[in-house]
Protein backbone atom coordinates (compact mmCIF):
# COMPACT_ATOMS: atom_id res chain seq x y z
CA UNK A 1 0.00 0.00 0.00
CA UNK A 2 3.09 2.25 -0.10
CA UNK A 3 2.51 4.32 -3.23
CA UNK A 4 5.87 5.01 -4.92
CA UNK A 5 6.74 8.30 -6.59
CA UNK A 6 5.56 8.52 -10.16
CA UNK A 7 2.23 6.76 -9.67
CA UNK A 8 0.39 9.90 -8.53
CA UNK A 9 0.42 13.29 -10.21
CA UNK A 10 2.19 16.11 -8.34
CA UNK A 11 -1.21 17.76 -7.84
CA UNK A 12 -2.65 14.62 -6.21
CA UNK A 13 0.41 14.43 -3.96
CA UNK A 14 0.14 18.11 -3.04
CA UNK A 15 -3.59 17.88 -2.31
CA UNK A 16 -3.21 14.98 0.07
CA UNK A 17 -0.15 16.59 1.64
CA UNK A 18 -2.17 19.72 2.34
CA UNK A 19 -4.96 17.59 3.81
CA UNK A 20 -2.46 16.00 6.20
CA UNK A 21 -1.06 19.27 7.58
CA UNK A 22 -4.03 20.13 9.84
CA UNK A 23 -4.22 16.48 10.91
CA UNK A 24 -0.57 16.52 12.00
CA UNK A 25 -1.09 19.86 13.68
CA UNK A 26 -4.15 18.65 15.58
CA UNK A 27 -2.39 15.41 16.48
CA UNK A 28 0.57 17.31 17.94
CA UNK A 29 -1.75 19.61 19.89
CA UNK A 30 -3.66 16.59 21.17
CA UNK A 31 -0.48 14.83 22.26
CA UNK A 32 0.80 17.99 23.90
CA UNK A 33 -2.39 18.14 25.94
CA UNK A 34 -2.70 14.54 26.97
CA UNK A 35 0.68 12.87 26.70
CA UNK A 36 2.00 11.41 29.89
CA UNK A 37 5.82 11.40 29.98
CA UNK A 38 5.86 7.79 31.15
CA UNK A 39 4.07 6.78 27.95
CA UNK A 40 6.59 8.32 25.56
CA UNK A 41 8.53 5.05 25.15
CA UNK A 42 5.28 3.24 24.39
CA UNK A 43 4.47 5.63 21.57
CA UNK A 44 7.92 5.15 20.13
CA UNK A 45 7.59 1.38 20.44
CA UNK A 46 4.24 1.58 18.68
CA UNK A 47 5.87 3.28 15.71
CA UNK A 48 8.64 0.67 15.69
CA UNK A 49 6.08 -2.14 15.89
CA UNK A 50 4.25 -0.77 12.88
CA UNK A 51 7.52 -0.43 10.94
CA UNK A 52 8.51 -4.02 11.72
CA UNK A 53 5.12 -5.58 11.05
CA UNK A 54 5.12 -3.92 7.60
CA UNK A 55 8.32 -5.85 6.77
CA UNK A 56 6.42 -9.14 6.87
CA UNK A 57 5.29 -9.40 3.26
CA UNK A 58 2.63 -12.02 2.77
CA UNK A 59 2.14 -13.73 -0.60
CA UNK A 60 -1.14 -13.13 -2.42
CA UNK A 61 -2.38 -15.84 -4.83
CA UNK A 62 -2.41 -13.35 -7.74
CA UNK A 63 1.40 -13.10 -7.55
CA UNK A 64 1.61 -9.85 -5.61
CA UNK A 65 2.36 -9.34 -1.92
CA UNK A 66 0.80 -7.37 0.91
CA UNK A 67 1.37 -6.82 4.61
CA UNK A 68 -0.32 -5.78 7.83
CA UNK A 69 0.24 -2.21 9.06
CA UNK A 70 -0.65 -2.30 12.76
CA UNK A 71 -2.50 1.03 12.63
CA UNK A 72 -5.66 -0.14 14.40
CA UNK A 73 -3.72 -1.74 17.21
CA UNK A 74 -1.77 1.46 17.91
CA UNK A 75 -4.97 3.51 17.74
CA UNK A 76 -6.75 1.23 20.23
CA UNK A 77 -3.86 1.16 22.67
CA UNK A 78 -2.52 4.72 22.41
CA UNK A 79 -5.40 6.66 20.88
CA UNK A 80 -5.98 7.62 17.24
CA UNK A 81 -4.03 10.91 17.38
CA UNK A 82 -0.97 9.22 18.84
CA UNK A 83 -1.37 6.54 16.17
CA UNK A 84 -1.46 9.20 13.44
CA UNK A 85 1.90 10.53 14.64
CA UNK A 86 3.46 7.09 15.15
CA UNK A 87 2.34 5.79 11.76
CA UNK A 88 3.48 8.99 10.02
CA UNK A 89 6.96 8.76 11.51
CA UNK A 90 7.26 5.11 10.46
CA UNK A 91 6.09 5.94 6.92
CA UNK A 92 8.43 8.91 6.55
CA UNK A 93 11.45 6.84 7.60
CA UNK A 94 10.40 4.00 5.29
CA UNK A 95 10.25 6.44 2.39
CA UNK A 96 13.46 8.33 3.23
CA UNK A 97 15.76 5.50 4.21
CA UNK A 98 14.35 2.45 2.43
CA UNK A 99 12.55 3.89 -0.60
CA UNK A 100 9.35 2.12 0.51
CA UNK A 101 6.68 4.58 -0.62
CA UNK A 102 7.49 7.82 -2.38
CA UNK A 103 8.71 11.10 -0.95
CA UNK A 104 6.29 13.12 -3.07
CA UNK A 105 3.60 10.57 -2.23
CA UNK A 106 4.13 10.87 1.54
CA UNK A 107 0.91 12.89 1.88
CA UNK A 108 -1.05 10.14 0.14
CA UNK A 109 0.57 7.31 2.06
CA UNK A 110 0.14 9.01 5.42
CA UNK A 111 -3.46 9.90 4.52
CA UNK A 112 -4.21 6.21 3.87
CA UNK A 113 -2.18 4.52 6.58
CA UNK A 114 -1.72 7.20 9.26
CA UNK A 115 -5.17 8.80 9.07
CA UNK A 116 -7.84 6.58 7.44
CA UNK A 117 -6.56 3.35 9.00
CA UNK A 118 -6.06 4.39 12.64
CA UNK A 119 -9.19 6.54 12.85
CA UNK A 120 -11.60 4.11 11.20
CA UNK A 121 -10.02 1.28 13.16
CA UNK A 122 -10.36 3.18 16.41
CA UNK A 123 -14.02 4.12 15.94
CA UNK A 124 -15.06 0.69 14.70
CA UNK A 125 -13.38 -0.77 17.78
CA UNK A 126 -15.23 1.70 19.99
CA UNK A 127 -18.49 0.77 18.30
CA UNK A 128 -18.13 -2.97 18.93
CA UNK A 129 -15.77 -3.19 21.87
CA UNK A 130 -16.59 -0.17 23.99
CA UNK A 131 -16.16 -0.98 27.68
CA UNK A 132 -15.17 -4.57 26.93
CA UNK A 133 -12.67 -5.64 29.56
CA UNK A 134 -9.11 -6.09 28.27
CA UNK A 135 -8.53 -9.65 27.10
CA UNK A 136 -12.24 -10.49 26.95
CA UNK A 137 -13.58 -12.31 23.92
CA UNK A 138 -15.56 -9.25 22.86
CA UNK A 139 -12.53 -7.00 23.06
CA UNK A 140 -10.36 -9.35 21.01
CA UNK A 141 -13.04 -9.82 18.35
CA UNK A 142 -13.70 -6.09 18.22
CA UNK A 143 -9.99 -5.47 17.66
CA UNK A 144 -9.78 -8.10 14.91
CA UNK A 145 -12.87 -6.79 13.09
CA UNK A 146 -11.72 -3.18 13.41
CA UNK A 147 -8.26 -4.06 12.08
CA UNK A 148 -9.76 -6.00 9.17
CA UNK A 149 -12.13 -3.20 8.11
CA UNK A 150 -9.65 -0.36 8.71
CA UNK A 151 -6.85 -1.76 6.54
CA UNK A 152 -9.40 -2.40 3.80
CA UNK A 153 -10.65 1.18 3.95
CA UNK A 154 -7.04 2.38 3.72
CA UNK A 155 -6.50 0.09 0.72
CA UNK A 156 -9.70 1.43 -0.86
CA UNK A 157 -8.44 4.99 -0.44
CA UNK A 158 -5.11 4.02 -2.03
CA UNK A 159 -6.86 2.28 -4.93
CA UNK A 160 -9.01 5.36 -5.60
CA UNK A 161 -5.89 7.55 -5.59
CA UNK A 162 -4.29 5.13 -8.09
CA UNK A 163 -7.46 4.77 -10.15
CA UNK A 164 -8.25 8.43 -10.75
CA UNK A 165 -4.82 9.07 -12.30
CA UNK A 166 -5.52 7.84 -15.86
CA UNK A 167 -8.87 9.65 -15.81
CA UNK A 168 -7.31 12.99 -14.94
CA UNK A 169 -3.80 12.95 -16.32
CA UNK A 170 -2.88 11.81 -19.82
CA UNK A 171 -0.04 12.78 -22.14
CA UNK A 172 -0.65 14.51 -25.46
CA UNK A 173 -0.75 11.12 -27.18
CA UNK A 174 -3.47 9.89 -24.85
CA UNK A 175 -1.31 7.51 -22.80
CA UNK A 176 -1.58 7.84 -19.01
CA UNK A 177 1.05 10.06 -17.41
CA UNK A 178 1.12 8.34 -14.03
CA UNK A 179 -0.59 5.20 -12.70
CA UNK A 180 -1.87 3.57 -15.90
CA UNK A 181 -4.65 1.58 -14.26
CA UNK A 182 -8.09 3.11 -13.78
CA UNK A 183 -10.60 2.61 -10.99
CA UNK A 184 -11.99 -0.51 -12.71
CA UNK A 185 -8.60 -2.23 -12.34
CA UNK A 186 -7.10 -0.59 -9.24
CA UNK A 187 -10.07 -1.04 -6.89
CA UNK A 188 -10.63 -4.77 -7.55
CA UNK A 189 -6.88 -5.49 -7.46
CA UNK A 190 -6.27 -3.71 -4.17
CA UNK A 191 -9.48 -4.89 -2.56
CA UNK A 192 -9.13 -8.57 -3.46
CA UNK A 193 -5.63 -8.47 -1.97
CA UNK A 194 -6.70 -6.82 1.25
CA UNK A 195 -10.13 -8.41 1.71
CA UNK A 196 -8.70 -11.89 1.22
CA UNK A 197 -5.28 -11.85 2.89
CA UNK A 198 -3.87 -8.59 4.24
CA UNK A 199 -7.06 -7.73 6.16
CA UNK A 200 -7.06 -11.10 7.85
CA UNK A 201 -3.40 -10.75 8.78
CA UNK A 202 -4.10 -7.27 10.19
CA UNK A 203 -7.05 -8.69 12.17
CA UNK A 204 -4.96 -11.51 13.59
CA UNK A 205 -2.07 -9.19 14.48
CA UNK A 206 -4.45 -6.77 16.22
CA UNK A 207 -6.21 -9.53 18.14
CA UNK A 208 -3.01 -11.30 19.17
CA UNK A 209 -1.38 -8.08 20.32
CA UNK A 210 -4.47 -7.05 22.34
CA UNK A 211 -4.45 -10.45 24.01
CA UNK A 212 -0.74 -10.10 24.76
CA UNK A 213 -1.18 -6.59 26.17
CA UNK A 214 -4.16 -7.65 28.29
CA UNK A 215 -2.10 -10.48 29.68
CA UNK A 216 0.90 -8.33 30.57
CA UNK A 217 -0.47 -4.93 31.42
CA UNK A 218 -4.15 -4.28 30.94
CA UNK A 219 -3.78 -0.82 32.47
CA UNK A 220 -1.87 0.27 29.39
CA UNK A 221 -5.05 0.49 27.35
CA UNK A 222 -6.49 3.90 26.64
CA UNK A 223 -9.47 4.61 28.85
CA UNK A 224 -12.28 3.45 26.58
CA UNK A 225 -14.90 5.72 28.10
CA UNK A 226 -13.10 8.80 26.85
CA UNK A 227 -13.52 8.22 23.15
CA UNK A 228 -10.34 9.31 21.52
CA UNK A 229 -10.20 12.52 23.45
CA UNK A 230 -7.75 11.26 26.01
CA UNK A 231 -4.71 9.12 25.67
CA UNK A 232 -4.25 8.51 29.36
CA UNK A 233 -3.99 5.08 30.92
CA UNK A 234 -6.72 3.50 33.00
CA UNK A 235 -5.75 4.00 36.59
Amino acid at each position, binding site marked *: *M*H*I*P*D*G*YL*SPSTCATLGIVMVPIWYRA*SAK*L*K*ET*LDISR*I*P*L*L*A*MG*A*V*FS*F*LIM*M*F*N*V*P*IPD*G*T*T*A*HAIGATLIAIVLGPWAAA*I*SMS*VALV*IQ*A*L*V*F*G*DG*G*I*LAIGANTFNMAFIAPFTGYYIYQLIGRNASPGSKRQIIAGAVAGYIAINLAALAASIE*FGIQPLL*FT*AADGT*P*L*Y*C*PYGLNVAIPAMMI*THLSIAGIVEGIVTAAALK*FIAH*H*SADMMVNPTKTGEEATPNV
Partner: protein
Amino acid sequence: MYKHYWLVLLVLVILSPLGLLADGTAWGEWDAAGLKETLGYVPQGMEQLGDFWQSLFPDYSMIFLGQSTISQYAGYILSAIIGSAIIYAAMILITKLLVRQKNKLVCQNK
Protein backbone atom coordinates in the same frame (compact mmCIF):
# COMPACT_ATOMS: atom_id res chain seq x y z
CA MET B 1 10.17 -1.13 31.88
CA TYR B 2 8.01 -2.55 29.11
CA LYS B 3 10.33 -5.55 29.00
CA HIS B 4 7.78 -7.81 27.34
CA TYR B 5 7.21 -5.37 24.53
CA TRP B 6 10.92 -4.99 23.83
CA LEU B 7 11.07 -8.77 23.59
CA VAL B 8 8.26 -8.81 21.02
CA LEU B 9 10.05 -6.19 18.91
CA LEU B 10 13.27 -8.19 19.12
CA VAL B 11 11.48 -11.34 17.96
CA LEU B 12 9.98 -9.40 15.05
CA VAL B 13 13.45 -8.17 14.04
CA ILE B 14 14.85 -11.70 14.11
CA LEU B 15 11.91 -13.17 12.19
CA SER B 16 11.72 -10.31 9.67
CA PRO B 17 13.42 -12.27 6.84
CA LEU B 18 10.21 -14.33 6.69
CA GLY B 19 8.90 -11.29 4.86
CA LEU B 20 11.36 -12.04 2.06
CA LEU B 21 9.82 -15.44 1.33
CA ALA B 22 6.86 -13.88 -0.45
CA ASP B 23 7.81 -13.52 -4.10
CA GLY B 24 6.56 -10.63 -6.14
CA THR B 25 5.75 -6.97 -5.64
CA ALA B 26 2.78 -5.34 -4.01
CA TRP B 27 0.14 -4.06 -6.43
CA GLY B 28 1.03 -0.60 -7.68
CA GLU B 29 4.61 -0.73 -6.39
CA TRP B 30 6.34 -2.01 -9.53
CA ASP B 31 9.50 -0.26 -10.67
CA ALA B 32 9.79 1.18 -14.18
CA ALA B 33 11.33 -2.01 -15.57
CA GLY B 34 8.56 -4.18 -14.19
CA LEU B 35 5.91 -1.85 -15.53
CA LYS B 36 7.51 -1.77 -18.97
CA GLU B 37 7.33 -5.54 -19.07
CA THR B 38 3.59 -5.72 -18.46
CA LEU B 39 2.56 -2.47 -20.13
CA GLY B 40 5.05 -2.19 -22.98
CA TYR B 41 5.91 1.38 -22.01
CA VAL B 42 6.65 3.54 -18.98
CA PRO B 43 4.18 6.41 -18.44
CA GLN B 44 5.95 9.71 -19.13
CA GLY B 45 5.18 11.36 -15.81
CA MET B 46 6.33 8.28 -13.97
CA GLU B 47 9.61 8.34 -15.84
CA GLN B 48 10.17 11.89 -14.62
CA LEU B 49 9.10 11.43 -11.02
CA GLY B 50 9.97 7.80 -10.38
CA ASP B 51 13.59 8.49 -9.46
CA PHE B 52 12.81 11.57 -7.44
CA TRP B 53 14.59 10.13 -4.44
CA GLN B 54 17.49 7.69 -4.07
CA SER B 55 17.16 5.99 -0.73
CA LEU B 56 20.12 4.66 1.18
CA PHE B 57 18.87 1.09 1.47
CA PRO B 58 16.32 0.53 -1.31
CA ASP B 59 13.84 -2.27 -0.57
CA TYR B 60 15.46 -2.89 2.83
CA SER B 61 18.51 -4.39 1.13
CA MET B 62 22.15 -3.83 1.98
CA ILE B 63 23.89 -4.12 -1.35
CA PHE B 64 27.37 -4.11 0.22
CA LEU B 65 26.59 -7.41 1.94
CA GLY B 66 26.35 -9.24 -1.39
CA GLN B 67 23.60 -11.02 -3.26
CA SER B 68 23.47 -14.47 -1.66
CA THR B 69 20.34 -15.56 0.18
CA ILE B 70 22.11 -15.37 3.52
CA SER B 71 23.33 -11.83 2.89
CA GLN B 72 19.82 -10.84 1.80
CA TYR B 73 18.46 -12.12 5.09
CA ALA B 74 21.25 -10.38 7.00
CA GLY B 75 20.58 -7.16 5.10
CA TYR B 76 16.88 -7.36 5.90
CA ILE B 77 17.58 -7.86 9.61
CA LEU B 78 20.08 -5.00 9.56
CA SER B 79 17.46 -2.82 7.87
CA ALA B 80 14.97 -3.78 10.56
CA ILE B 81 17.45 -2.76 13.27
CA ILE B 82 18.49 0.52 11.61
CA GLY B 83 14.90 1.47 10.77
CA SER B 84 13.70 0.67 14.28
CA ALA B 85 16.50 2.70 15.85
CA ILE B 86 15.84 5.76 13.67
CA ILE B 87 12.07 5.59 14.19
CA TYR B 88 12.45 5.13 17.94
CA ALA B 89 14.83 8.09 18.18
CA ALA B 90 12.62 10.27 15.97
CA MET B 91 9.55 9.48 18.09
CA ILE B 92 11.37 10.23 21.34
CA LEU B 93 12.62 13.51 19.90
CA ILE B 94 9.18 14.60 18.64
CA THR B 95 7.32 13.65 21.81
CA LYS B 96 9.97 15.22 24.07
CA LEU B 97 9.73 18.46 22.08
CA LEU B 98 5.95 18.40 22.45
CA VAL B 99 6.20 17.85 26.19
CA ARG B 100 8.79 20.62 26.53
CA GLN B 101 6.53 23.06 24.67
CA LYS B 102 3.70 22.12 26.96
CA ASN B 103 5.82 22.71 30.07
CA LYS B 104 6.88 26.08 28.73
CA LEU B 105 3.25 27.06 28.31
CA VAL B 106 2.43 25.92 31.82
CA CYS B 107 5.31 27.99 33.26
CA GLN B 108 4.25 31.10 31.32
CA ASN B 109 0.72 30.84 32.62
CA LYS B 110 1.86 30.79 36.23
